[in-house]
């Protein structure tokens, strides 16, 4: 039986990756910290090990004897307010994992990045070869993802066998922190305070997870794979969500206003360490959204993206089953305070 360490195995992509590995007959180990949300992991047949990521020996120890290490825990900045700090933190985290993998002599590291790290192209779908020569300006999220990718690439040159997976916006079950899923939860609960139109590419998280497993088996060292699904206009997506599951939708606002509003709400939220309904990172992803080509992943890994509606239905069913779609009584849709990041209490 093959053994895998899934860093980030308590998160959205990570939990789906754990499921894909277990379905493929792998033995799975997940490093957890004291405050990791282990609630969903506990029901799975995995080994949980306590690891302090600031202790290289602990990380290296957790990697030893594994056939593959997956890093599905890339730093995801809560706010876009301090790019230098967020970039430094992401790079440091990536370096710690890659260093430990190199020293533990793991056969392969599968690293999860994001299409946010890619360049903008015109007239065709973006692919894994479209790497900006310099760090993207004007978006903390994109800059962090770009810098982390470059850091992990440095270790390819030092002999670490890395396969980089570059998914677009993931949709599906186990999105406990409500990432891309906020476009569903926000509409259904009538709590999306604003939105901006543009293009987004969405892909089912389970298809992404399976591609990761295939990458560990078949991906060549240094290979990079875009995992795109369906490029849609945000307006079409939100209208589809409302038509399928109900809810309410405010009018869109211009991009510049959306940027300003997201920044302002993040600044306010940061004073109480709270979360905002529409973070700046989401505005940036819509601004830079574009169709994504998965041709290389289809060719080498057999990647196939299921229909978007199927992914939306799966995500909606999960959010509903976990209580995320309950709306407090007695308040009008779209006039409520920004939605919290997770389930509502019923009242």
């Amino acid at each position, binding site marked *: 039986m093959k053994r895998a360490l899934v860093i980030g195995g308590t998160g959205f992509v990570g939990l789906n990756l754990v499921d894909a590995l277990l379905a493929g007959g792998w033995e799975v180990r997940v490093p957890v910290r*004291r*405050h*990791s*949300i*282990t*609630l969903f992991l*506990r*029901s799975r047949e995995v080994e949980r090990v306590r690891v302090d990521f600031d202790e290289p020996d602990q990380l290296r120890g957790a990697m030893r004897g594994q056939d593959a290490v997956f890093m599905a825990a890339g730093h995801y900045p809560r706010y876009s307010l301090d790019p230098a700090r967020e970039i430094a933190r992401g790079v440091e985290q990536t370096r710690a994992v890659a260093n430990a993998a190199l020293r533990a002599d793991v056969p392969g590291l599968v690293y999860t990045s994001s299409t946010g790290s890619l360049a903008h192209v015109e007239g065709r779908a973006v692919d894994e070869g479209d790497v900006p020569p310099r760090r993207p300006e004007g978006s903390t999220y994109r800059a962090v993802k770009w810098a982390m990718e470059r850091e992990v690439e440095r270790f390819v040159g030092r002999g670490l066998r890395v396969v980089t997976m570059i998914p677009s916006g993931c949709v599906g079950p186990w999105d*406990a*922190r409500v990432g891309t899923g906020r476009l569903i939860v926000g509409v259904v609960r009538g709590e999306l305070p604003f939105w901006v139109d543009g293009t987004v590419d969405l892909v089912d998280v389970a298809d992404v997870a399976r591609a990761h497993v295939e990458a560990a088996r078949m991906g060549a060292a240094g290979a990079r794979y875009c995992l795109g699904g369906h490029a849609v206009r945000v307006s079409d997506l939100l209208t589809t969500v409302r038509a399928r599951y109900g809810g309410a939708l405010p009018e869109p606002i211009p991009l510049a206003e959306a940027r300003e509003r997201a920044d302002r709400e993040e600044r306010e939220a940061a004073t*109480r360490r*709270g*979360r905002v309904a529409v973070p700046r990172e989401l505005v940036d992803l819509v601004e830079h959204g574009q169709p994504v080509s998965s041709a290389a992943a289809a060719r080498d890994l057999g990647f196939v993206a299921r229909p978007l509606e199927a992914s939306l239905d799966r995500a909606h069913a999960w959010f509903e089953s*976990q*209580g995320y779609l*309950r709306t407090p009584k007695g308040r009008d849709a779209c006039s409520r305070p920004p939605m*919290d*990041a*997770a*389930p*509502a*209490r*019923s009242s």
Partner: protein
Amino acid sequence: MLETPDGRRSRTIELIAEILEVQVDTVRPPQRLREDLGLDSLQSLELLSLLGEELRLELPMEEALELETVEDACAFVERTVAANA
């Protein structure tokens, strides 16, 4: 400590304080988790995770969503322990 109702109650309150990064004596049973203490949804998931790890219990999330006060959280722990005894 976790083998008695009083011990579990104290530990539940300590964990709420730990997650909120406040002094434990500022967390009182009648307080509302969200409105009074500012526990957000992800912190609620964190609390369920920590309780699950320490008590070695699977805590039903559906029921956890109904919790309003610190007292509710303590009672929820006792109900779950009793159901798993």
